[in-house]
């Protein structure tokens, strides 16, 4: 059980905002003169600051990982499943931090915030961030919070990529690294799916080259279509058959017989697309998918094992059997590279029909394994 009423919820959470006035330079050379990060924390930082855990969010995630913003909120944070008192990432012991990535659309400086110079939204002008830029930006947040080393950096999918990049770029900062349903870099098929999603957005006439907010339009159709494609790839064929089968929506049994027959799965995808198109910024979607495409953990090294040989962390890798977007084999590549360089790693492939989304969904084996492994994180 999750939500504000559960004793295992972090309860009502107020996001915090930190402003950095020093220039922040992206890998591509672009600079922000100042920027803000919105973040949430759960639990208490201990005096020695040895119990801090960073949660990195995925493509459509945000800083709102657990709890609720007010007692009436229906849906708790995106990873409330595993974050809370007595949960696998136990806020009774650990101080958990989650920020909205730079370039996101939930309150950190991004394409939907105002450019300081012109007072218009950044829109198409916002720099392209990469995974390693997010890592450096999260490091600024850590320093602001008085943290000089993470007991663990944890993430799934794109969040897992950030956790891995942390372990490689700042080895002495990362004691434990948890990468779920992740990959050392996207496959051609994966980049292709992202390109379809971007194309849907970029070809929406309301996109206006990315400056839709300034021109007071919204590329809702493009974003909805992008989300429908994305969402489809996060599920598995078996999972969809179990959940939707060939069921029709009830309204489509109208007695006049003229009504269009709508399958449950159609209705579901339309709903997901529509909901997402009002919640999520189109430019952020484009930037995030590009960051995914550009991510290459081995970049600057002869191979993946050389990159990971930098790390000092103890690793947990979990893959999910029916995940074809970030297939188990991709986690196995990371595992083998870690094993080749003598790093400490645990890997399990969780049996599930939930596809790539499995790391966000209940599963007794997954939750127990994560909980047991997390026991080694933080002061004993």
């Amino acid at each position, binding site marked *: 059980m999750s939500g504000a009423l559960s004793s295992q919820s972090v309860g009502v959470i107020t996001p915090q905002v930190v402003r950095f006035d020093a220039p922040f330079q992206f890998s591509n050379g672009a600079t922000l003169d100042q920027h803000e990060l919105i973040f949430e924390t759960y639990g208490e930082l201990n005096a020695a600051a040895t119990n801090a855990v960073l949660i990195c969010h995925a493509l459509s995630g945000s800083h709102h990982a657990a709890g609720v913003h007010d007692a009436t909120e229906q849906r708790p944070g995106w990873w409330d499943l595993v974050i809370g008192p007595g949960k696998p990432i136990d806020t009774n012991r650990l101080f958990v931090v989650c920020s909205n990535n730079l370039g996101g659309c939930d309150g950190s400086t991004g394409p939907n915030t105002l450019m300081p110079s012109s007072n218009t939204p950044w829109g198409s002008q916002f720099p392209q961030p990469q995974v390693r830029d997010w890592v450096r930006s999260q490091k600024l947040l850590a320093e602001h919070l008085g943290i000089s080393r993470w007991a663990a950096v944890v993430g799934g999918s794109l969040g897992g990529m950030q956790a891995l990049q942390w372990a490689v770029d700042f080895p002495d900062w990362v004691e434990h690294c948890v990468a779920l349903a992740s990959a050392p870099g996207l496959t051609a098929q994966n980049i292709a799916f992202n390109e379809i999603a971007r194309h849907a957005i970029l070809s929406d006439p309301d996109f206006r080259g990315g400056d839709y907010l300034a021109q007071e339009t919204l590329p809702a159709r493009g974003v909805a279509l992008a989300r429908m494609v994305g969402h489809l790839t996060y599920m598995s064929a078996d999972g969809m058959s179990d959940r939707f089968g060939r069921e029709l929506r009830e309204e489509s049994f109208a007695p006049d017989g003229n009504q269009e027959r709508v399958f449950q799965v159609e209705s579901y995808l339309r709903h997901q697309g529509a909901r997402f198109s009002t919640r999520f910024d189109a430019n952020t979607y484009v930037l995030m998918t590009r960051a995914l495409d550009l991510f290459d953990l081995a970049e600057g090294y002869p191979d993946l094992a050389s990159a990971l040989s930098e790390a000092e962390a103890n690793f947990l890798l979990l893959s999910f059997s029916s995940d074809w977007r970030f297939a188990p084999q991709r986690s196995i590549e990371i595992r083998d590279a870690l094993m080749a360089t003598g790093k400490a790693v*645990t890997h399990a492939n969780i049996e599930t029909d939930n596809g790539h989304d499995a790391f966000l969904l209940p599963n007794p084996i997954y939750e127990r*394994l994560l909980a047991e492994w997390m026991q080694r994180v933080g002061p004993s």
Partner: protein
Amino acid sequence: MMNRLDLNTVHDWVPRGSSVLDLGCGDGAFLQRLCDERDVVGVGVEIDANNLISAVEKGLNVIQEDINDGLHCFPAHRFDVVMLTHALQELTHPHVTLERMVQIGKQAIVSFPNFGHWFCRLHLGLRGRMPVSRAMPHHWYDTPNIHFCTVRDFEALCSELNIDIIERATVSGPAQKILGKLWPNIFATSAVYRIRRSGQ
């Protein structure tokens, strides 16, 4: 679970402070004992998710993998010791796994129940049926033990695979300790071998 006396021998043979790969580590109890008592750096391989969780609970690092898939994730000479205790008989291709073990490990330790034990011979010889006992509780049609062998079988295979036997120990019933040493193929209930690739 029968009393696994073979593990005491394995325990004593594992060098202090060595790196150890435990194939089929189960709930990790034995690997944890080696970590505590022999200061080893251990990695487990386990296929069963519930076992894996128990091993992780003990603070161990475990890889979920089917040993039969070839153990490709481990580079040559990655470990001081690769051990396989009472699992040889469950493997699809025991000879392939043995060859991999002596590649991955500078040495390997293998223990297995001896199918040449007099009880098995008697059971098969007099009753004409596959033996079922406390130590081997499964019926032939429903057993994980698909490749039983005898002490002599194992030694012949090692010779064929150019694997050197460094040391052998036997486990026998209390009344047959001496007999087990003299005629292991008949009186040892299980055997423990320390092996390595020939010419190493």
